[in-house]
């Protein structure tokens, strides 16, 4: 094969001028040698403080029960399930980046997939907390699984809530394994780079003796493709199953067929918002603009815009279906949302999720990290409000006006919610400090020097 001049110049996934050595050293130095920036201490400290609030709120919950939350008939799902759906949706972007974009051969994913996957894991950890805390007797959470027991009872496999147990635990397990497999070669790099005996031992054990053998790499590549192929239907199924928690019920506003795709789009929407909210400060503080380039931000913003439009379509469809379906309860539900006690939340979510992101059509906005950061936060708030409105407003005003009641969140609701943000920050910044936040070996493959030049024989 002739190696013509500039046959195919790849688009800039990373800045020019990097070599295998500098890429390795720059990413590894965040963990190994460089002094920890103040930003890390501040963020980690904030996470730790909020985590303490979480422990306080959960401690009280264990002592007194879910009554400390604002749960009163008929709104028995309140904040807990809102937060669950919100957090698990955020996780979706990580799997999308690591699995679906891998299968689609989108190489720009290589420098953001690692921390996005970490984000997935920690978001799922926060999400998983809520249904368990919401059980009433959280210490009996293992009753959710089928196991031989002296009570002689078993879970009801016809219930979407039991499907959810399987969907979320499978998702958490598969994400963790996928993440670990991706980490193995980089752990070997850290093992070989560190001068600290304890760190070498720890990374060495975790790397499992990875030595970069060609034999291993070929199996490794097969394994990552297969895992990506398995994770792809999984990630699409998780939020689908979460939406079944709602759609299988007959509550107005829940019982619709478009909820699954709408939930998945919303999940990816909020997930990419979280990716941007994390990537923009990180690349600034650690000087990684050459690896997480403007192109990454631009692409993530475009994904946000696209999924945001799907979500907007779903809102329009919801309203249309309520009017066109001729079901009095559905129509009343939409009317209540727009004009009733939750109208502020409803119109805020419309502004945050539909109106504000339209700014992303403009390249000027997409090329301004500060503006992108703000729009990501706006979307995260909007998506939280969306879940809140779906859950709370549907339950508060359902069929019988005599049983209507308005949900009032208590301080413990807020503390538990903010506390999981603390847990997320705590875990995430621990990860930033201890593990390479960018996949080193995958970034190496992006370098021009990584291409094998074929000689004409």
């Amino acid at each position, binding site marked *: 094969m002739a190696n013509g001049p500039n046959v195919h110049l790849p688009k800039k996934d990373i800045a020019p001028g990097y070599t295998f050595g500098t890429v390795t050293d720059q990413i590894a130095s965040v963990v190994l040698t460089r002094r920890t920036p103040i930003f890390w201490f501040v963020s980690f400290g904030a996470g730790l403080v909020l985590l303490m609030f979480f422990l306080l709120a959960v401690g009280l919950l264990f002592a007194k029960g879910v009554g400390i939350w604002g749960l009163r008939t008929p709104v028995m799902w309140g904040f807990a399930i809102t937060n669950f759906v919100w957090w698990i949706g955020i996780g979706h972007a990580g799997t999308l980046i690591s699995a679906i974009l891998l299968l689609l051969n989108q190489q720009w994913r290589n420098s953001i997939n690692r921390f996005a996957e970490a984000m997935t894991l920690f978001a799922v950890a926060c999400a998983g907390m809520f249904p368990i805390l919401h059980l009433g007797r959280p210490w009996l959470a293992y009753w959710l699984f089928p196991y031989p027991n002296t009570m002689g009872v078993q879970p009801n496999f016809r219930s979407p809530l039991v499907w959810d147990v399987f969907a979320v635990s499978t998702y958490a397990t598969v994400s963790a394994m996928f993440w670990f497999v991706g980490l193995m070669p980089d752990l070997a790099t850290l093992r070989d780079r560190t001068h600290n005996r304890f760190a070498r031992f720890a990374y060495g054990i975790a790397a499992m003796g990875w030595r970069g053998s060609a034999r291993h790499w070929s199996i490794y590549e097969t394994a990552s493709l297969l895992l990506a192929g398995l994770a792809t239907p999984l990630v699409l199924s998780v939020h689908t199953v979460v939406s079944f928690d709602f759609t299988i019920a007959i509550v107005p506003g829940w019982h619709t067929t478009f909820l699954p795709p709408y939930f998945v789009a919303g999940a990816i929407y909020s997930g990419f918002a979280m990716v941007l909210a994390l990537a923009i400060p990180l690349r600034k503080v650690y000087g990684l603009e050459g690896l997480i380039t403007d192109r990454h931000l631009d692409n993530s913003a475009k994904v946000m815009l696209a999924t945001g439009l799907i979500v907007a379509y779903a809102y329009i469809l919801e309203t249309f279906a309520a009017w066109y379906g001729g079901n009095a309860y559905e129509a009343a539900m939409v009317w209540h949302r727009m004009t009733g006690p939750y109208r502020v939340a409803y119109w805020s979510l419309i502004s945050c999720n539909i109106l504000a992101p339209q700014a992303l059509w403009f390249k000027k906005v997409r090329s301004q990290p500060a503006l992108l950061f703000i729009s990501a936060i706006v979307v995260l708030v909007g998506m939280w409000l969306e879940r809140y409105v779906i859950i709370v407003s549907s339950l508060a005003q359902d069929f019988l006006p005599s049983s209507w009641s308005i949900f009032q969140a208590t301080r413990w609701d807020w503390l538990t919610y903010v506390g999981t943000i603390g847990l997320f920050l705590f875990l995430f910044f621990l990860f930033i400090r201890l593990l390479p936040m960018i996949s080193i*070996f995958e970034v190496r493959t992006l370098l021009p020097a990584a291409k094998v030049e*074929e000689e004409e024989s």
Partner: protein
Amino acid sequence: MIKPLYGLMAEFDNPTALVAAARAAREKGYRKLDAYTPFPIEELTDALDLHHNKLPLIVLLGGIIGGICGYMLQYYVTVIYFPINIAGRPLHSWPSYIIITFETTILFAALSAVLGLLALCGLPMPYHPTFNVPRFVLASRNRFFLCIQSRDPLFDRARTVEFLETLEPREVSEVAP
């Protein structure tokens, strides 16, 4: 007593040189070789003829077993162990089993992919002779290594060194067992 060598290792600067060297060694007749690189190189997989592995089969079997186990678990519980009439539905209400069957399929397949990867690679393996080469730490940074093992029938200490030197490596080192 001097233990026999594990093999001889040549160090290269770039993937192109390594792939060329691997091809040359295969042509020369060496079969017990391995290369060590900081990232996967597809051409190297070709050059060393490593394309076939059993992992897809393992994952397929894992998925099938997972699916069957998931379905049978639900069947056993809802029909035999704990039959309970819910809204007059048949006990064997298979449409509601689909989701958990799907989840266990994915779970078992992914578990077998990861465990299969480790098993086929022989990992975890904290000690390996290649780690004895001091410069081998660079295999996880920016250097590319080709190792001809002493169990190769064509292996001869002097002649193999001579051959490796013709490939213009940066350095040829002996790998202690």
